């Protein structure tokens, strides 16, 4: 088989760090034909590439990471009926790892791949049916948006939410940055659409137990926890909420616009579940909807794709002891404040009175190597908004302690101007400590903040009544669990990694699974909606086809060599192998070509088709032979 090699210069990214000319010379001297293009992924580059492939030839591309544009070149090669295709990441694995070693690494990669290609036998492309259903994990604003869009286009959508009510954190927001409009006006119409949409099946209080199957045909097992209130009977009148003797009440319907409008009984607080004979809520319910005997229910679904929208949570601020959260009265987080605002609760300062002087502390835990080494981007806007509201509603003196103000959208700057006009003060400096012990005895009864105004003044202690901590974002608890159930990649902080941050932000490395919202990194409301709808679009594109093409026929079984130990059957993580009359059978819809069986086979009777062990051994041989 003749192999043609294509180099992409990547607009200088590769050619500036790697001597392509020398590489070309080296490869040409051993009889390989080499082509080079400044942008192989551009229209011209693709045409250049396509025109030079002849049927039956092998193609080796040296460009960027296979995750980025690998599929483009692969499909073009298939279109031209190339016999073998392989791509090496010259950019990431050679050019960008240091100029000195670039050439060596590149020649190793290329010669190794050339050798491996001679063993290559392409997997067979086959069509598989796609189940139409879509599972959306997480009922926050991103999940909602995705579910609604997909359901609108006729997909059956299953929306799973761990909490008893839908809407996530957005329902507990009071006003929105930067226009200070009412958040509930934007969220609640979506929530009502949720109930009306026929294609949408809601699973509140539910988590995923198991995911099996392959892209296009996942089998999902869900567990729905008991609500102890019959959703068929309950009309959401709220009579039961008023009679609960426990404080805080054991039966609640927390959000301002609860969806579903059905209360929940918290078994941990409820007297009935603690062995007492209380059943006041049951007695007062006119529709006999209370069901103390309810038990968890299992649901089994078949879906074609999954959207993960597990969202974020604010950094647990109690991990920063010197800010006194949960220890000092009058120290609350922004999310506590929003909750108080939406429920129109009274807000009290350190001394139990209405706050007259308030500090808003930005970057709590953020950009801190000991806590969150990154910036969450959107908290500045949230903090600014909260500061203005506090100023307007309490006519309090408001001080912002910030490091850098990162305000998104052009309107952010307008909001900042508005805040300054209203007399909100801005101090550039991180707060080092919040303490109940005053520096000056006359400040007793207030909280003392230590900070330095790094832009001048030099005043270093402030006495305030209320402190609003604005923490950064971390992935929601339980997202690691979802990641390991779905085998998704996460970054070092636990956010889900997309296939490619810029060009494929809602796709994952797994076909048929997409991510939406703050699960992949801090996002504000509009970005969450945006990514939710983008994920829905991707899901629709995939699921609305009744089938999709994927590679099969990955392994080869040599009957003569097989010792019938069937280790392979045991090893296969996807149960794709089984024994049929003393012969090995592969269930091709389940096999994904991981190669665990081949490496487990003690007699070498199983071989991977695309790159068998001989290919690896031989490519190691040439790789080391180079030096």
């Amino acid at each position, binding site marked *: 088989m003749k192999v043609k090699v294509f180099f992409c210069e990547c607009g200088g990214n590769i050619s500036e760090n790697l001597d392509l000319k020398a590489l070309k010379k080296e490869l040409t001297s051993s009889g390989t034909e080499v082509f080079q293009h400044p942008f192989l992924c551009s229209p011209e580059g693709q045409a250049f590439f396509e025109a030079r492939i002849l049927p039956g030839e092998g193609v080796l591309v040296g460009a960027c990471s296979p995750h980025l544009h690998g599929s483009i070149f692969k499909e073009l090669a298939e279109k031209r009926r190339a016999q073998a295709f392989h791509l090496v990441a010259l950019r990431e694995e050679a050019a960008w790892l240091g100029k000195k070693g670039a050439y060596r690494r590149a020649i190793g990669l290329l010669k190794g791949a050339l050798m491996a290609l001679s063993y290559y036998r392409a997997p067979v492309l086959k069509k598989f049916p796609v189940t139409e259903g879509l599972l959306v994990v997480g009922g926050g604003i991103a999940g909602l948006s995705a579910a609604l869009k997909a359901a609108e286009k006729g997909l059956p959508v299953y929306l799973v939410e761990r909490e008893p009510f839908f809407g996530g954190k957005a329902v507990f927001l009071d006003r929105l940055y930067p226009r200070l409009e009412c958040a509930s006006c934007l969220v609640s119409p979506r929530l009502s659409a949720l109930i009306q949409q026929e294609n949408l099946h809601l699973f509140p209080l539910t988590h995923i137990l198991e995911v099996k199957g392959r892209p296009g045909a996942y089998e999902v097992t869900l567990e729905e926890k008991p609500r102890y209130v019959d959703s068929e009977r309950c009309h959401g009148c709220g009579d039961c909420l008023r009679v609960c003797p426990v404080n805080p009440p054991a039966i609640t319907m927390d959000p301002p616009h609860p969806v579903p409008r059905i209360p929940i009984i918290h078994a941990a607080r409820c007297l009935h579940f603690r062995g007492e004979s209380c059943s006041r809520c049951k007695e007062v319910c006119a529709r006999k909807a209370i069901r103390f005997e309810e038990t968890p229910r299992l649901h089994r679904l078949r879906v074609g794709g999954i959207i993960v929208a597990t969202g974020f949570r604010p950094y647990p601020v109690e991990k920063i002891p010197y800010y006194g959260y949960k220890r000092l009265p009058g120290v609350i987080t922004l999310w506590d404040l929003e909750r108080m605002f939406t429920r129109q609760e009274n807000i009290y300062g350190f001394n139990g009175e209405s706050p007259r002087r308030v500090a808003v502390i930005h970057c709590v835990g953020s950009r801190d190597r000991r806590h969150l080494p990154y910036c969450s981007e959107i908290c500045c806007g949230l903090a600014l908004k909260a500061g203005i509201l506090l100023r307007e509603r309490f006519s309090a003196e408001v001080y912002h302690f910030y490091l850098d103000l990162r305000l998104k959208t052009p309107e952010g700057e307008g909001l900042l101007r508005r805040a300054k006009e209203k007399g909100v003060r801005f101090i550039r400096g991180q707060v080092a400590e919040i303490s109940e*012990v005053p*520096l000056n*005895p006359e400040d*007793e009864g207030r909280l003392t903040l230590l900070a330095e105004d790094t832009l001048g003044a030099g005043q270093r202690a402030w006495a305030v009544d209320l402190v609003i901590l604005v923490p950064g974002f971390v992935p929601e608890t339980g997202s690691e669990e979802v990641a390991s159930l779905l085998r998704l990649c996460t970054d070092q902080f636990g956010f889900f990694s997309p296939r490619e941050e810029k060009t494929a932000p809602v796709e994952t490395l797994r076909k048929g699974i997409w991510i939406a919202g703050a699960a992949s990194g801090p996002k504000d409301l509009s970005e969450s909606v945006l990514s939710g709808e983008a994920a829905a679009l991707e899901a629709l594109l995939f699921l609305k086809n009744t089938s999709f093409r994927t590679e099969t026929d990955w392994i080869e079984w040599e009957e003569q060599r097989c010792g019938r130990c069937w280790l392979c059957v045991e090893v296969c993580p996807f149960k794709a192998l089984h024994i049929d009359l003393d012969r090995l059978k592969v269930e091709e819809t389940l096999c994904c070509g991981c190669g665990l069986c081949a490496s487990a086979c003690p007699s070498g009777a199983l071989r991977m088709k695309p790159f068998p062990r001989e290919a690896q051994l031989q490519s190691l041989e040439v790789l080391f032979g180079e030096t």
Partner: protein
Amino acid sequence: MKVLYYPGCSSEHLARDFYLSIEALASFLALELEPLPDWNCCGAREIEEAPEGVGLFLASRNLALASGKELLVTCSLCFHNLKRAQNILRENPIWRSRMAEVLKDEGLELSPDLPRILSLTEFLTRIDFSRFRSPHFRGFPVAVYYGCFLSRPYPTDLQALEKVLSAAGYPVIPTTLKTHCCGGHLPRTDSPVIKNLCRRLLFEARQKNASGLAVACPVCKLNLEIYGDPPFPVRYFTQYLGLALGISPSWLGIPEEE
């Protein structure tokens, strides 16, 4: 039980009451306190201005004398200096070989097995004081104060004082400033800052209705006593422990009139 310990220079003068109360406690608990033979000064804060080698030498000499054993250190500043030197000797082979060479002048050897350095606060958590409490003793609320060098940069158990004092029968009042700075060596500079620092520390103890402040460091006690305005009872935690065990105040270095 025999305990090897490093008394530090202040035990003879400035913190004589600390030293007396430790001795009294030890004899009550039947511990055999054995001072490190021929110990020398750790150099206090002055090593910060002298060349690095001087401070290292002063500490290494003590470390060499105690090698391989467990060394109890009572003074916080000595604890810090010894720990710091030990870390440098462990991590930096160049300093280690230089120190070995210097110590040869005195015929000492820096064995590879450096001593385990233990602060007094942590050491006393090994003892269950509730067993020794005097039946006549009635505890009163005390606040605790660790100061800097037991907290940073080589942190010890920052619940140790709470543990031992509450076992001895004192209601211990939690304070937020327990690891803050008392001003250290600042008195030498005649600075007004130290008054504010000490006032704030005592303000908290008073605000939270403590009847006394238990400290673990001679310098902290000195500062708090001199600059505490208005005065507030400040005692070494060992003195408080001694009172709970029923030891006479005069043996603990507490003056009669109080």
